């Protein structure tokens, strides 16, 4: 027992000082499994569910699956991109409302759409360093139950009213209120520095890389087909807990066809010089949902007889200067992946699965086009030639965001848990562990990427 009476289930010895001058080999961080709730199109099944409701639902399922009742987890990290100010302690509140031990610490993290993957990387690093033995990485977002702020005018009046001391001062403050101040301020999808929506930004990139309408529709078609097949084969049976009557992602269209996708009208890039190619079919819809991933040290997982699906080998974040169009808003992974692979001595040929988040079909295809481009490789990546080509049959093999939907912070957890399961099933390839690459783009010109390996 430690000083405060809580059971000491941390590392048995503090090895820090002994490591002076002699680097200690890092422990491995393993992915035990994951759980998410089905993703719902906004305005659908989860319209009235809050971020805390959905995060708790996903946590409950994870706890039930791995027997974590009353367990004190080393740390829980989660986040939401669209967050109410009252949810200042969203993750800790979800933990308190779950069956986990109330002595489980938690923190919130926010890195736009990379939030979910960043919680995995940060917690895996703590496990590798021996700071914690177990962790839950998670993410949640609701586009239906989005926070709406009062206008700047009303906000300033309310704050000044709070500071006013006398009745006269209060009346003076109130007299500043104008009818237009009562209009609410809803969150937009526009980038603050450009005023362009994410779709309009991607339309510029899609045009810059000459990505055709047909190739975008084909990627969307494959996403639906692969996700539908994964459901049919029972792939999600141990990755998902039904919630609010949904047992499958509500955006999934198993019967969609290339013809149907081709019939949709463009929604982004309509005022550009190039042909508009981005439709509601090859762009992700606004979605509600939550996902969780259970991480652990090997000792912790073994001592509880829990599965070890994969290890978190490494991760990398990158950002691009998109504000004046030097690079596309969602192109940071095109830089992060080459850096990550160089550090690990790997090439694109060393991977069995590629999970490239489908913010828009154009995002995936622009990234692949940049990697295949000689000049981009030489002038932007500092290589001798193009970075490389991926085997398309290894790309998003169980579907991705175009079919499943994309509740911003929940996408990382969805991908990590699914990929870990695929890697575990694949096992060993040519004497090495099966290996997968994750790439997630994010608002603000950011991107986070990671390598997982079968455990």
């Amino acid at each position: 027992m430690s000083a405060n009476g809580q059971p000491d289930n941390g590392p048995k010895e503090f090895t820090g000082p002994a490591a002076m001058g002699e680097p200690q080999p890092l422990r491995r961080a393993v992915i035990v499994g994951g759980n998410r709730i089905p993703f719902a199109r906004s305005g659908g099944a989860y319209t009235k569910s809050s971020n805390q409701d959905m995060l708790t639902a996903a946590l409950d399922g994870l706890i039930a699956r791995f027997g974590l009742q009353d367990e004190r987890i080393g740390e829980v990290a989660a986040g939401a991109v669209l967050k109410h100010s009252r949810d200042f302690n969203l993750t800790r509140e979800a933990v308190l409302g779950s069956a986990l031990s109330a002595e489980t610490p938690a923190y919130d993290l926010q890195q736009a759409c990379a939030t979910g993957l960043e919680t995995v990387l940060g917690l895996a690093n703590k496990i590798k360093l021996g700071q914690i033995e177990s962790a839950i990485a998670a993410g949640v977002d609701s586009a239906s139950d989005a926070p709406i702020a009062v206008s700047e005018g009303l906000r300033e009046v309310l704050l000044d009213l709070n500071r006013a001391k006398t009745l006269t001062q209060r009346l003076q403050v109130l007299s500043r209120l104008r009818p237009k101040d009562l209009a609410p301020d809803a969150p937009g999808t526009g980038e603050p520095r450009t005023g362009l929506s994410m779709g309009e930004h991607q339309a510029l990139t899609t045009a810059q890389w000459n990505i055709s309408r047909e190739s975008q529709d084909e990627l969307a078609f494959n996403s639906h087909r692969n996700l539908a097949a994964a459901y049919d084969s029972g792939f999600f049976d141990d990755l998902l807990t039904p919630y609010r009557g949904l047992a499958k992602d509500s955006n999934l269209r198993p019967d969609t066809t290339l013809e149907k996708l081709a019939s949709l009208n463009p929604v982004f890039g309509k005022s550009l010089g190039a042909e508009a190619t981005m439709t509601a079919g090859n762009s992700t819809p606004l979605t509600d949902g939550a996902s969780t991933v259970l991480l652990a040290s090997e000792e912790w997982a073994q001592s509880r007889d829990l599965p070890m699906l994969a290890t978190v080998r490494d991760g990398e974040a990158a950002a691009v200067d998109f504000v004046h169009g030097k690079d596309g808003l969602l192109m940071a992974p095109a830089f992060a992946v080459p850096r990550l692979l160089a550090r690990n001595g790997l090439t694109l040929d060393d991977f069995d699965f590629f999970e490239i988040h489908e913010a828009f079909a154009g995002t995936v295809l622009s990234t692949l086009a940049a990697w295949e481009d000689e000049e981009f490789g030489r002038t932007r990546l500092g290589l001798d030639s193009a970075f490389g080509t991926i085997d398309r049959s290894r790309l998003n093999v169980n579907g991705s965001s175009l079919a499943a939907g994309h509740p911003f912070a929940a996408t990382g957890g969805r991908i990590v848990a699914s990929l870990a399961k695929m890697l575990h099933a694949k096992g060993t390839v040519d004497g090495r562990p099966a290996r997968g690459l994750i790439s997630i783009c994010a608002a603000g010109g950011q991107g986070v990427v990671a390598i997982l390996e079968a455990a």
Partner: protein
Amino acid sequence: MTTAQPLILGEMPSLSKLYMNAAAQAARRRVLGAHGGSTLPDIGHEVRGVRADVGNLTAYQHLIGLTARDTLPAGYLHALTFPLAISVMNRDDFPLPVLGMVHLSNYVEQRAPVLFSDLLDIEARVENLRGHRAGTQLDVIAEIRAAGTQDIRWTGRSIYLAKGVFLPGIDKASPNSHGYGDFRPPDPTAVWQLGVDTGRAYAAVSGDFNPIHLSVLSAKALGMRRSIAHGMYLASRALADVGPVKGETFGWDVTFEAPVFLPGRVALEITTDERPGGGWQRSNYVAWNPRSGRRHFSGSVTPF
């Protein structure tokens, strides 16, 4: 080129009083006939020991889309000099009508950073009266110095046109083709949504309550079909969008073309020129109406 010592004013003149006075002067001149002179007053106006109001500065910075830093933005310094410029043009010996003048272009040199706490001496004068194909134009020169010194921190040259006013002895400039037709809008790097209250909001922080910017009614009274955005509001936002790459000292120019009617959308492209070895050399900006493709303004930011 001033030959006379500037006239020192006791305090910064009030723009609303100056506009009232200008309206009265316009009426007087209509009755008594136009001012006879074809020369500009060669005396500047100066106010000493000016300090920015920090609350007003913060409101300006947030409106323009700037982080509220302690340094005064170059566009804010223009607004600080503006009442003095109008006061010079309100003089009885100023030969052109102030109301209805069109801001054609603007050149600023930010020679050294100015902090909101700095005491400043500010001077404005007019020079270079000359013809224009559509009337008569002149330069308004403004200068900001550290109080009590000759240390110039900021200078501005604003070129104004008195449309349809032709003075005796001032030649009409030959019609130069400005080339509206040549402009082909590029893909934008940003789009601004300007609300109907954009003019009022900028008036509140800049003090420039020129009626053409305030409302449909007040603009119609002066012959515009709707209210229009302040030119320096637009140029200052473009400068803000160029970002911190420009450093603390820089040159900044803007040329205005089609006015921006409110409410409206403005598309903007910012391009960056780099030095051969890398590093920022210059930023260029151009803004246009995304529907009609008409160019609103263009300009650049260069190292000082």
